[in-house]
């Protein structure tokens, strides 16, 4: 990056450290932090949307829809979610390729043959000849979808509870004013449920932050991948030889996560205070008393 870094073997001390920390691979490492943030930024709204759909379905008066919603919320609770992560990524990949093979292959066959999963080359996603970037992006998209699916089930659980926690009298009053079911839902239920949902959702956000290292297991080059890659001991054949430094890299990741959860905690406490403002709950009462 800097001109003085052209010959790393001849420099030492602070200059060496500066050159080392700005080497090409380290820049990739720093970018991978953005990968994690991007995953969070995409997954959180997607999971919330899926959770909202699940909770709404669970409240439906049609039995099959309601069972579907409740089943979705219930299924991820008995099983470790890492099983879902490992399962969905490969199952989705194969499912998509199978569907594509039905559309584009000359004579599509059942792809699960013996010990292989085989579709014609045109049905591969992404195509064998596409660039490494597309392979990475596809892997990342699968990961986002899987995260959204699993965390959506948890969000559905939280939101379903929150919708039930809104006082019955509020809904009955709205109905007495002649509002339709849709209007009650939009104007009364949804605006009031957030204060009840917030503790559960903040818990979920913390869990989501702490689930991001699992990207590594899904084959995305995330911070854990780079920490292992960069920290491993490097012989003289490398530009910057050093002993095994993985401990320090993982310590760095630990500090990153601790800071991230701490900041989240502070922000969520503020949001909670704002939502509680003026609510007829114990939290709202405490705020009123503190101000008076």
């Amino acid at each position: 990056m800097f001109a003085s870094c052209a010959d790393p073997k001849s420099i030492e001390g602070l200059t060496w450290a500066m050159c080392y920390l700005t080497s090409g691979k380290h820049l990739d490492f720093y970018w991978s932090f953005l990968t994690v943030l991007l995953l969070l930024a995409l997954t959180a709204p997607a999971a919330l949307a899926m959770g909202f759909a699940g909770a709404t379905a669970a409240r439906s008066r049609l039995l099959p829809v309601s069972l579907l919603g409740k089943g979705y919320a219930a299924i991820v609770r008995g099983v470790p979610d890492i099983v879902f992560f490992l399962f969905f990524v490969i199952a989705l990949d194969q499912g998509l390729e199978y569907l594509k093979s039905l559309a584009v292959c000359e004579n599509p066959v059942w792809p699960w043959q013996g010990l292989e999963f085989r579709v014609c080359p045109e049905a591969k996603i992404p195509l064998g000849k596409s660039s490494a970037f597309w392979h990475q992006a596809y892997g990342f998209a699968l990961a986002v979808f899987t995260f959204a699916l699993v965390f959506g089930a948890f969000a559905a659980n939280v939101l379903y509870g929150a919708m039930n926690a809104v006082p019955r009298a509020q809904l009955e009053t709205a109905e007495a004013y002649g509002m339709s079911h849709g209007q009650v839902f939009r104007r009364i239920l949804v605006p009031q449920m957030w204060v009840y949902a917030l503790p559960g959702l903040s818990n979920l956000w913390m869990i989501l932050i702490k689930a991001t290292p699992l990207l590594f297991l899904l084959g995305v080059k995330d911070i854990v991948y780079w920490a292992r890659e960069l920290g491993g001991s490097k012989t003289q054949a490398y530009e910057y030889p050093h002993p095994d430094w993985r401990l320090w890299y993982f310590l760095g990741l630990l500090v990153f996560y601790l800071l991230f959860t701490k900041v989240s905690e502070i922000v969520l406490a503020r949001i909670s205070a704002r939502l509680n403002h003026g609510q007829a709950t114990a939290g709202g009462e405490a705020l009123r008393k503190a101000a008076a």
Partner: protein
Amino acid sequence: MTCWETVQAYAFRSLGFGENLLPRSDFTLCQQITLIGSGMLWNIYFGVLALAFGFFLAVAVALAKSSPRALVRKPAEWFVFLFRGSPLFIQFFLAYEALQMLPKAGINILGITVETAWTTRAWAGALLVLFLNTSAYAAEIFHGALKSIPKGDLEAAEAYGITGWQKFRRIQWPTMLRLAWPAYTNEAIFLFHATTLVFFSGFPAFRQMGDALYYANYFADKTFNPFVPYPIVAVYFILLTLLVTWIFAVVNRRLNRHLPSNVKSRIRLRPQLIR
């Protein structure tokens, strides 16, 4: 090979007994169910021991956290923050690297050489991490329960002249357990779920002796078919979850036996999946 022979060969494969070579071709459903079930032994080992040891450390940390003296309270607060604020996945990696830094030849303590190589093996190293992790989570639960003991109970105890250790033993301890138990049940369930991370993070499986997910992943990699092994793991874990819920419900009934039936706390599952 009949199914019974497969069971004989692989039922304790995860502990190193029986057939040494894992199946390499012509995978049968029986092999998958047997081997994955054999791996469950590790999940149960990690879960049970971490919970059993963690319970005592958790109570100690919870008490330290509610201490009025900052010298006792602060370390407990930091311990809980460290283990609850960071992913278990990273904790495993970190612990593995840290344990590898121990001198290979062993540490000399008062003329006796203490071996260190075993600490990097999963049965010890991962158990240590799980033990500390569940202690931190459970300490937070117990701390919350200590805080919500009714004020009147403590005042009544003092009015009767019960103080110090007696007060803790007879009033605070049983009430704390009773209040914390539903949340602690969830902690136990999700600790069992967390044990599946062990062999996917840092700690290598020694001689292919891994847990349920390790074998499921092995089969999925070999057969390119995720639709058989992963649902098998799922079924095993649902059964384990039901068993844990049942055992904890029995204890819960005992803790609540003096209360009228309409105020007993029911155990509700709450999400706390990844640590």
